[in-house]
């Protein structure tokens, strides 16, 4: 039954991509409306700013449009978009710290100079946001993909280009560090 559902979804997505490839603006608009808010959340979580997230998501959707004509349903559209969005975000993070070797990036805490948002004033929310920004970017990506984007572990691991056990390990370390950071900040009442 689930497989039938997956087949239906794949068939729908093939038709959707054909419509986009044919230059149908309504089909592309529908796809943008459906995918962009979710991708913006993911990119903002990775990069820390909505402005940069907007650039990355726009580039990601352009890539999808360019690839629509040769679309092969090897992955769901959402998964493919997350992978491209992730790679583009990593490129941006690397450019932001051009003086840091790539291998060191994972160990660096991100988001030291992120602007405050009026909507993130709540103490609890701000604590979580701060804790997430202190996570190394791969741990943060694991949390974002699994808990924020609600992707399955296999899908999330595929997006990051790592094995499922490696993803599980990242997620475990991320949650442990989040708990530690939140406990340290307050009395543990997040």
């Amino acid at each position, binding site marked *: 039954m689930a497989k039938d559902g997956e087949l239906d979804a794949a068939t729908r997505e093939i038709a959707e991509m054909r419509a986009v490839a044919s230059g149908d603006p309504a089909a592309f608009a529908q796809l943008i409306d459906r995918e962009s808010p979710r991708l913006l959340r993911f990119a903002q979580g990775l990069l820390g700013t909505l402005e940069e997230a907007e650039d990355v998501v*726009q580039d990601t959707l352009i890539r999808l*449009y360019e690839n629509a004509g040769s679309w092969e349903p090897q992955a769901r559209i959402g998964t493919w978009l997350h992978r491209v969005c992730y790679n583009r975000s990593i490129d941006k993070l690397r450019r932001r710290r051009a003086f840091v070797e790539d291998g060191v990036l994972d160990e660096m805490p991100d988001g030291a100079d992120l602007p405050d948002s009026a909507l993130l004033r709540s103490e609890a929310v701000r604590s979580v946001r701060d804790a997430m920004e202190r996570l190394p970017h791969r741990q943060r990506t694991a949390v974002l993909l699994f808990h924020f984007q609600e992707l399955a572990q296999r899908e999330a691991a595929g997006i990051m280009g790592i094995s499922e056990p490696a993803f599980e390990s990242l*997620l*475990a370390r991320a949650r442990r560090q989040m708990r530690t950071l939140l406990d340290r900040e307050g009395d543990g*009442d997040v």
Partner: protein
Amino acid sequence: MSELQSATLIARLRIYGSDLSRWPDHQQAAREALVAQPDVRRAWESERVLDRAMAAHRDAMDQEIARSDAASGIRRRLLSRIPADPLAGIAWRSVAAAMLVAGMLGGAIDLVLPEPLESTDMAMLDPLDTLDDADTR
């Protein structure tokens, strides 16, 4: 329930959080039963606090995105970049299928209808001849 099962379950809680439906394996009934154990229950509640805090952060991000112009800006910019195609949106497959069906129907009708038994001769009257006859009368 053995101590090992309880320890394994707590370890899984630490990795995947309190929402048991998100765990990658499919043993929810067993997990729900285990959550009734006090030590597992404590670990589950502790992870639920973290999960709720993350959910609140996610909701705040979504609200910020919804209030911003980000999504509509992306839509506007991307749609202005794609070339306008006046024929886009026409379901060419449907059009081709309709033409094929019409052709087949025409052929079928031609086969089903009987041939005329004898050919009908048509007399062409030359209107000028008729006029001439009238004039001469």
